[in-house]
């Protein structure tokens, strides 16, 4: 049962990811990106990491929505947006292949994806709200707080920048 869902969802994720790159219109790309993120969330849920799955949708749905609005508001062209000439397309293809093939090789040989990480003590607890919360507020408290202060600084910075523009 889980295997069927896994193959179904991951193949859908791959199709949507390809669709995102191939799509001619930026809005279609954004919709495909949302679909990819949703599929990834389902994969997280299959791995028993329900919190990460929920956060994946919550954070990325919002983030891509902003991207979506950028596309609508800033790029007013309906067609032929972001299209490059046929000559440039070939250069892009070569570049993608030249960089992508080694990356694929590294990923297939690397051992980082095999087995559980060092900090995961109890696999049943891992990914639950309790498990993630306990790790965040004990072992990783300092990096967590630093990250939150950095984000706050970025937020305040954005507000200050827009205020200056208004004056």
């Amino acid at each position: 049962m889980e295997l069927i869902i896994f193959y179904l969802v991951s193949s859908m994720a791959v199709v949507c990811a390809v669709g995102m790159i191939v799509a001619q219109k930026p809005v279609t790309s954004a919709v495909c990106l949302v679909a990819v993120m949703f599929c990834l969330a389902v994969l997280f849920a299959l791995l028993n990491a329900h919190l990460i799955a929920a956060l994946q949708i919550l954070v990325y749905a919002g983030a891509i929505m902003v991207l979506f609005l950028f596309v609508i508001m800033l790029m007013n062209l309906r067609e032929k947006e972001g299209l490059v000439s046929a000559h440039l397309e070939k250069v892009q293809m070569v570049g993608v292949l030249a960089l992508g093939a080694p990356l694929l090789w590294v990923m297939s040989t690397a051992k980082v994806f095999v087995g559980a990480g060092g900090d995961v003590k109890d696999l049943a607890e891992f990914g639950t709200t309790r498990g993630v919360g306990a790790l965040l507020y004990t072992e990783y408290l300092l990096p967590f707080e630093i990250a939150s202060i950095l984000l706050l600084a970025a937020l305040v910075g954005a507000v200050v920048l827009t205020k200056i523009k208004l004056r």
Partner: protein
Amino acid sequence: MGIAEMIETIVKIGFIIGLTIGFFAPMLAWVERKQSAVMQDRIGANRADFFGFTVIGLLHSLADAIKLIFKEDFIPRGAERALHTLAPVIAVIPSLIAFAVIPFGGKYTLWGHEVNLVIADLDVGVLYVFAISSLATYGVVIAGWASNNNWSLLGGLRASAQMFSYEVAMGLTVIGLIMFYQSLSMVDIVAKQDNFFHWGIIWHWPAFVLFLACAVAENKRVPFDAPEAEAELVAGYFTEYSGMKFVMFWTAEFIEMVTIAGLCVALFFGGHHVPFITDAELAGGFSFLGPNVSNLVAMLIGVGVFIFKLVALLILQMTIRWTMPRFRYDQIMKLGWKMILPLSLTWIFIVGVGILTGVMPSP
């Protein structure tokens, strides 16, 4: 997953879909017309009849359904055909699947089989609802964009800004409740409300008021219906929709109302619990029927109580809808960011102090 669990899940999904799409969506359409008529001293829909029987206007839902099925499905020139068709589907699905984590009863043992009356008992229940409801924004914005109509686009943009703002506030209003019950799982939260004095509404009524305001704003109903303000934007994001696609937006709105009511019942009004009577006492009252039948009776009473509370909250939402005038767009934004957000942050602080000092005994 065994056969029994599979059947149980399918029955529960069927029950919820039947309850929302099959019963509440057409009934709410009727209530909306009839209640507004009563409140405005009119008679309301009463013309559709079947061999002369009008059944107090109830047949209008059926007549509307038949009419809308046979209406022309119109896609405007220059619209994005695929996205225009997809948008109503994207709008209706999140409102349906958000109901999956709302428990409509407790846990009962029937003939040796444990029945838990919730479709998915997720560890992150409350977060799941917020995640799914954030997806609902897409249906509206895509509809507005794909219609190739400026009114639609403006409606979609308004909806996106409004739903974003109120999602933040709505998430914060329930943090106090989560701190109080020490769980994100809806099943746990409902289970901890078996004592009437632990109901969310007793300790967290300010959170309930804020939550309901945010939820109505999320659902884009009056007084927060600026995205579809007919005086300014024709009909907002669904201006270019007709027939069944239009009905899908409309169904999504009603199902969201039911989901909001379900959330409020589960978080604030004790779910399926009868005040002052625990599940065990309820089943014990029917113990002369034998253990299985008494559990079954307790289960049916629990589901009945849940639906009763659901209807009460739906009527409350309907009354709000027909009592308030529409807010101006800047008023909506001001209310969300400058009033509800600081208030909910203050409430989180108060609950934290209350729990730490023991004034607010966490169950």
